[in-house]
């Protein structure tokens, strides 16, 4: 009976999977960008004259990590709407 109920709710299960997947992806992005930012802060505090170089490198690294997160976002959008 429960398996029949689960089968009938396939559409809702897809939405559940998509939203849970999105949340998990943000955990990864948060940890990654947090580490990048934290270590960039440490380095900038040690060597204030390198601040602008470190800042641009930090932004680039954060954009790359976010790019990986957005892959999962696209898959979630596909699961929700397609």
């Amino acid at each position: 009976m429960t398996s029949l109920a689960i089968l009938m709710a396939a559409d809702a299960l897809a939405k559940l999977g998509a939203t849970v997947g999105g949340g998990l992806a943000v955990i990864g992005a948060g940890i990654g960008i947090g580490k990048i930012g934290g270590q960039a802060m440490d380095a900038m505090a040690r060597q204030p004259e390198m601040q602008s170089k470190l800042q641009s490198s930090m932004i680039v690294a954060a954009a790359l990590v976010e790019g990986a997160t957005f892959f999962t976002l696209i898959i979630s959008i596909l699961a929700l709407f397609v």
Partner: protein
Amino acid sequence: MKYRIKSYLILLTLMVLPIMTAYAQGEQSEEKGGVHLKEILFGHVQDSYQWHITDFNGKPVIIHLPMIFYSQTSGFHVMCSSQFEHEPNSELLREGPDGFYIQGAEDEKGRIVEKVGSELQPVCFDISITKQVCVLFIDAILLLICILIPARWCKTHKVDDPAPKGFTGMMHMFIMSTYNDLIKSTLGEKADKYAPYLLTCFFFIFTANLMGVMPFPPGGGNITGNIAVTAFLALCTFLLTNVTGNGHYWREIFWPEVPTWLKCPVPLMPIIELFGVFIKPIVLMVRLFANMLAGHAIAISLSCMIFIMFALGGWMGNLLGGVITPVSVLMSIFMMFLELLVCYIQAMVFTLLSAIYINMSHSHAE
């Protein structure tokens, strides 16, 4: 003491404000069941055959765009999209002249199909000026104006002349900072050869992103959120890196300098490196596309939250709507600033990575 009373009064007014809006809204009743967020969202980010600007006094303000297509049975057709019905009929087809239909719901791009005999056949070649093509033209014209005016200054002045002021000065600063920080620092002495492509890439993506974020015409069209546009940009980078790659680059892919057991009986590393050659441009494409699409979706959703709350109906909906309005407005302002930053960052990351890939494809044996 006086400041304390003043701050309490301000706080009280702010708390009363949502309740007042709820009372004001209570007079008009919402007859529509809910706000269709999905339609609004996809209407804004997807392509369509007409440009729906806004709704004025209940009537939609639409610019109808030309449709140019070639069908196998009856040749070239040029018609205006206003000749197609606005509402789809029972088979979800919008009827038009000469037996052509647009398949799909209203305000969606759909496909042009033709009724041949009794079955529907899609037309084989569709080069209509859709909304995104129109925005592409507008962006290109804007970019040409913004770049060719400083270029003209450079042609008519000598190197020793004092620096230009105003718009030309600003564009000079922008272009030179991009050239020095992104291109010259990565490519070194090969910078002059690839700078035209990389600078064009950067400014086109930046302009297209900015115009997509603007909510009113001539902005409003979202081209970098369309995967075909970013796919073409990534294809350009892919062709440039691989066509101009030197021998050492290809040797590094097919015979990398790793222990022999990874290469010889089963070519593990060469296959991984070959995948890398294709995956790097694909990642460029998806990164830009997803960032822009997500940004637009968030901006539209935050604004629509107000309407969804009000559409819940009754006093609860009105109170929630009133409370959420300042929250939504503040968050929308914050998201807009973040969007501007993301526009610049994404253009910069695309150009920087393209420069890095081009540099890697001209490697020398160390």
